[in-house]
């Protein structure tokens, strides 16, 4: 948490329905949640991010744990929401990021680069198995441990470790093929 505020203080405030507690948690976690959802190809990552935090805030009274556990908890919600959206999208046409209207941003150039990066990452992940992409993205974006990722994905730590290894091998082959120095 920024501004020298301890996570416990912020969590207690949010559990007491204090708006500033919600705001600190959202400011701290929403960029990575939003990025994860965007790279994973959510139809409307901004709306889905808001839904994730609304769901988390509604149930925050039942949460107990430290900051890492809270991060893992929110990513679990995000991943399940994403899975729900993917299932629902099976019956509907997908909307790509390019079709969404551009939203105003503070730095247009940086936002454009960010979109290009996201598109590049998405292309790279397209060559991976979905589970491998999930593990690698969660590892890099959320900073969760393998055990925490295992909980998010509802898999065993061993399986997550294997998925990570196979995903990295697949990426290495791609980079070697493109001549990108590793």
């Amino acid at each position, binding site marked *: 948490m920024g501004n020298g505020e301890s996570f416990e203080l912020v969590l207690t405030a949010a559990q007491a*329905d*204090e*708006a500033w507690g*919600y*705001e600190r948690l*959202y*400011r701290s976690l*929403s*960029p*990575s949640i*939003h*990025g*994860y959802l*965007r*790279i994973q190809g959510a139809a409307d*990552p*901004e*709306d889905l*991010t*808001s*839904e994730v*935090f*609304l769901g988390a*805030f*509604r149930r925050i009274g039942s949460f107990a744990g430290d900051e890492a556990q809270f991060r893992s908890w929110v990513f679990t919600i995000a991943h399940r929401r994403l899975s729900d959206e993917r299932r629902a999208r099976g019956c509907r046409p997908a909307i790509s990021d390019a079709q969404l209207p551009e*939203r105003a*941003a*503070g730095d247009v150039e*940086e*936002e454009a*680069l*960010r979109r290009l*990066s*996201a598109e*590049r*990452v998405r292309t*790279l992940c397209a060559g991976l198995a979905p589970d491998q992409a999930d593990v*690698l*993205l969660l590892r*890099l*974006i959320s900073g969760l441990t393998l055990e925490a990722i295992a909980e998010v994905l509802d898999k065993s730590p061993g399986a997550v470790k294997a998925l990570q290894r196979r995903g*990295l091998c697949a*990426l*290495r082959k791609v*980079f070697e093929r493109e001549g*990108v*120095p*590793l």
Partner: protein
Amino acid sequence: MTPFAEEVRFAVSGPPPAPTPALASVLAGGFSNPTEKGDLLVTAGSNVHGPAPQAAGLPNWKEETEMPITGFFTAALAKLAGAGTAAKAALAGVTAVTTMAMAGGAAGVLPGPAQTLVASAVNAATPFEFPGAGDVTGTVGQAVGSVPAQLPVPVAVPDVPAASANAGAKAGSTSASASASTAAPASTPPAMLPSLPGVPGVPGLPQVTVPPAVSNLVNGMPACVKDLIPAGGATPDPTRLAAQIPGCITQVLGTASLPPEVARCVSAILGTIGGVSGMSTAGVPSVGSLNVSSCVPMDTSKCVSAMTSLLATTPGISGGGVPNIGNLPGLTNLTGCVPMNVTACLTSLTSAATTGTTGTTPKLDLSACMPTGLPTSGLPGTGSLPGLGTVSGLSGGGLPGLSGALPFFGR
């Protein structure tokens, strides 16, 4: 993997995304103090103008029949099925006496002496102000328009002792009751309650005293009312009660020579009670047809509102199981219909019946069943009815013949 990791971290960097209005509301004021109501932006565009009309129109719902007043009383009395026979008999007696006295008396249409009797008794017992015999003409003129010059049936009315100094004060505005008070001695010793029948095998019941107002009220009723409790120590038989009540109603109405409107009101109320006990209900009107305007003691709007509310919240009465009295909601609100604290009365009677089944001394406190405002000193109280635990049929589980006599309990 460094290029990939850097690519990913750059892609997810940046400021927090703009929250949706719903989340923005929470971020601004929390859940308990949202800054806006709902999230209208998620409403589907196709629903903006409301749901599309159905081609087939609304379904043809079966028209609901109005629940007759018998249903209300049946539901209420079905709750009492778990209570003992003695409790039912006591409640039926109190209800009958109270209803008859209040309905006819307050309407100001009873024959002169009877009106005086009822007025003095009720004025002594309740905070209501009732017209005496001297005020009958005006009251009847407003209520029914005409009064028979001669009473068709001579009425034998016992002497009316003064109820109390308090009663005289309350009845001061009614000339007849005031004169009745002045004609009688200033203070009258408490009258004796009609002796209760002895029960074989149990000690004799002690004599208890009741205030003059109550004694007069009971004595003023035809003997059939008192005969509802059988003499000779027998347990009140519901079947016999069902046979007695119709005749008693007829007798009371005939004695009082009530105008048709009031008679219809009284018979409706008493017929309902009787109908629950197995009487014919053919002539019992429903709520809609009941001329409650003739039932002056009722706070009509409050009573009907209470009944409606009660019916809406009363659990379904199944034939298989009768819920506990404690589950009957809203009985307190029936004070608009019955001039007594119904809940306290039921609780007292149920408690006495329940205690009786355990073999311990029942705590029968009839003071709770008296009209509101009645002085309770001298009424039979705690422990004054020893040995009732051995009375057969007092158990709520065993009510011989009651199920056959209560045809509407399964409704």
